[in-house]
């Protein structure tokens, strides 16, 4: 794998991003309420959390499917928050792409595969002539493990795994710097999930693409991500390298999330009981928390008191050797 240079400027810098949805005069859903994180070129950043935690909203706000309420998004030196200048918008559309969750729903059923994939190139004028366009499309089709004959078929003629490959091809054809994969493998069968994850990893090695990998399946996230952000109710409660999150989780929500992953080891699994996290009972208020750094890469959202309490707890767990989440 290519080494990631963490001293360089991050590819994506998000600062205090807020995405609120006004429901009516009295009520506003604060789907994302002030999150900050960085993604460096060439890495995979995993965003995990339960449904309603705002992880998909974050992805959609970043690619500007929504208009963020406030906050700053710097993408490769371009400010893509607020009103977009046409140059910035063009840059964004070419260099940030998305892979969607449901491969059945995200492909136009009336277009051939080659047309679906070519669309990005056509809109962005990324080809010299017709021949060049065709070649580029066929090259990417080959890269995602489909064959030439597939180019002239329609999405309905493919299985779920193959359709997700088409979705990946469409996202990668413009040679984007950042790809947001929003639950890209959740809808697939287990054996197919592994195929698609391997494909995404291979393509990253080859093209140096950066991924924002949004998912709720922690074991897959652990496998694919370099760093992980754990989201809950619109806040990133803990972020760190994959190792730090899995071996030294501090935030009780992270711990409960980790404890809920089922392991394919029946004897152990039968004895294990997941840990419950009740935000109200613990009296945690995310809006009062500030980011406490544990290491350079690992930080947790907490008030001073909470931080002290949780780190002490984590240390005790470490000493007791009870790290079997």
């Amino acid at each position, binding site marked *: 794998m290519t080494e990631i240079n963490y001293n360089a400027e991050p590819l994506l810098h998000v600062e205090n991003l807020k995405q609120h949805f006004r429901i009516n005069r009295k009520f506003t859903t604060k789907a994302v309420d002030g999150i900050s994180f960085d993604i460096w070129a060439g890495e995979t950043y995993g965003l995990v959390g*339960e449904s309603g935690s705002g992880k998909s909203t974050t992805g959609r706000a970043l690619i500007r499917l929504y208009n963020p309420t406030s906050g700053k998004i710097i993408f490769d030196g371009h400010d893509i928050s607020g009103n977009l200048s046409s140059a910035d918008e063009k840059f964004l559309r070419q260099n940030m792409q998305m892979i969607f969750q449901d491969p059945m729903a995200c492909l136009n059923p009336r277009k051939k595969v080659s047309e679906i994939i070519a669309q990005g190139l056509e809109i962005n004028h990324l080809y010299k002539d017709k021949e060049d366009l065709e070649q580029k499309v066929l090259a990417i089709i080959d890269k995602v493990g489909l064959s030439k004959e597939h180019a002239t078929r329609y999405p309905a003629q493919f299985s779920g795994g193959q359709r997700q490959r088409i979705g990946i091809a469409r996202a990668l054809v413009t040679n984007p710097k950042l790809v947001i994969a929003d639950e890209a493998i959740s809808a697939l069968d287990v054996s197919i999930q*592994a195929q698609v994850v391997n494909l995404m990893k291979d393509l990253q090695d080859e093209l140096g693409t950066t991924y924002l990998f949004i998912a709720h399946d922690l074991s897959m996230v652990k496998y694919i991500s370099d760093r992980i952000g754990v989201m809950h109710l619109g806040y990133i409660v803990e972020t760190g390298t994959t190792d730090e999150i899995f071996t030294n989780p501090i935030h009780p929500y992270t711990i409960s999330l980790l404890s809920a992953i089922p392991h394919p080891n029946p004897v152990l699994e039968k004895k294990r009981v*997941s840990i419950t996290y009740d935000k109200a009972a613990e009296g945690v208020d995310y809006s009062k928390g500030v980011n406490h750094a544990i290491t350079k890469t690992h930080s947790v959202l907490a008030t001073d008191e909470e931080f002290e309490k949780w780190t002490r707890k984590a240390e005790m767990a470490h000493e007791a050797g009870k790290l079997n989440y």
Partner: protein
Amino acid sequence: MEKFKRNKEDRVLSIRDLNISFETAGGVVKAIRGVRMDLFKGETIAIVGESGSGKSVTVKTIMGIMAANGKIESGTINYTFTNEKGERETVDMTKLSQKEIRYRFNGKHIAMVFQDPMTSLDPTMTIGKQITEGMMLHLHLTREEANQRAIKLLTDVGIENPEKRFKQYPHQLSGGMRQRVVIAIALACDPDILICDEPTTALDVTIQAKILELIKKIQQEKELSVIYITHDLGVVAKVADYVDVMYAGRIIEKGNINEVFYDPRHPYTWGLLASMPDTDTNSKRLFAIPGTPPNLLEEIVGDAFAPRNPFALAIDYKAEPPMFNVGGQHRVASWLCDPRAPKIDPPEQLQERLIRMRAETGMSVVNEKEGA
């Protein structure tokens, strides 16, 4: 092992040589090809497989809710239960009409929890009405009695403030809550068998763990027999006593959970286990099963898994493997288990994982059966 003893008298369900096909526009789909399965009192079996492997069709047939174009070609589903007079009675579910199954068994003796709690609840009825409906019909309770029981059930499945929830509609509850309600409905008439068709796929991991623990607790209290349908091996490891792995309409490996998880023999089971990263997986690539499941519209010659199987033998393309008895309760339909077959080891990643898993559990034995 003491835990995995089955007593013949406790058998509640026995499926023999079940063959089911579906009439579709494209031709006849042979969805189930010779399934044999047993369920005993108080135990949990899990049916594992990809979509289209026939796991849902199998249990829907038990419930008599198979799609209209489906046809039971052959086979029996014998269900043993205590009837209204208090006698043990055995019926063949395949001989009964859908209507009869619906009136006599569904809900009362065999209940089902579906994947998506939003679509399995009626949005126009209150939670309370939906729970009491079955009880009043099957158990002939008065509204008052049924209401009281429903509130107790809601408490049992871990819903706080049951009196308030009783009057609410499904959309007023969260996903995990709804699934709890669905479980309460399934349990309303004290069934013997609970079928859970991917009960947690639509839920978050944290809630998933809670729901599985809940089903387990209730099962122990009421001595329920549970059939899980899932593709998540983590879930299987958590809940099941016995595992049936299905592929293209056949059971290709079965046994108690320890046999299948610590000593898998079929290449498809190897692939399933290896392609799921556990949180300790460090290898660079996941093991992936190549290709896609077969099209059941076409006649399958030999082993259905052969085209995707890197370990396939020549005979796999010619003849369908029988069920080989590999000791204990472990049965495998793969020519690799034939004594004449060459010895082939599971893929490396899986071997490492198996060794690690055995070490974690403190199992020193490499193979229990050979030791016994």
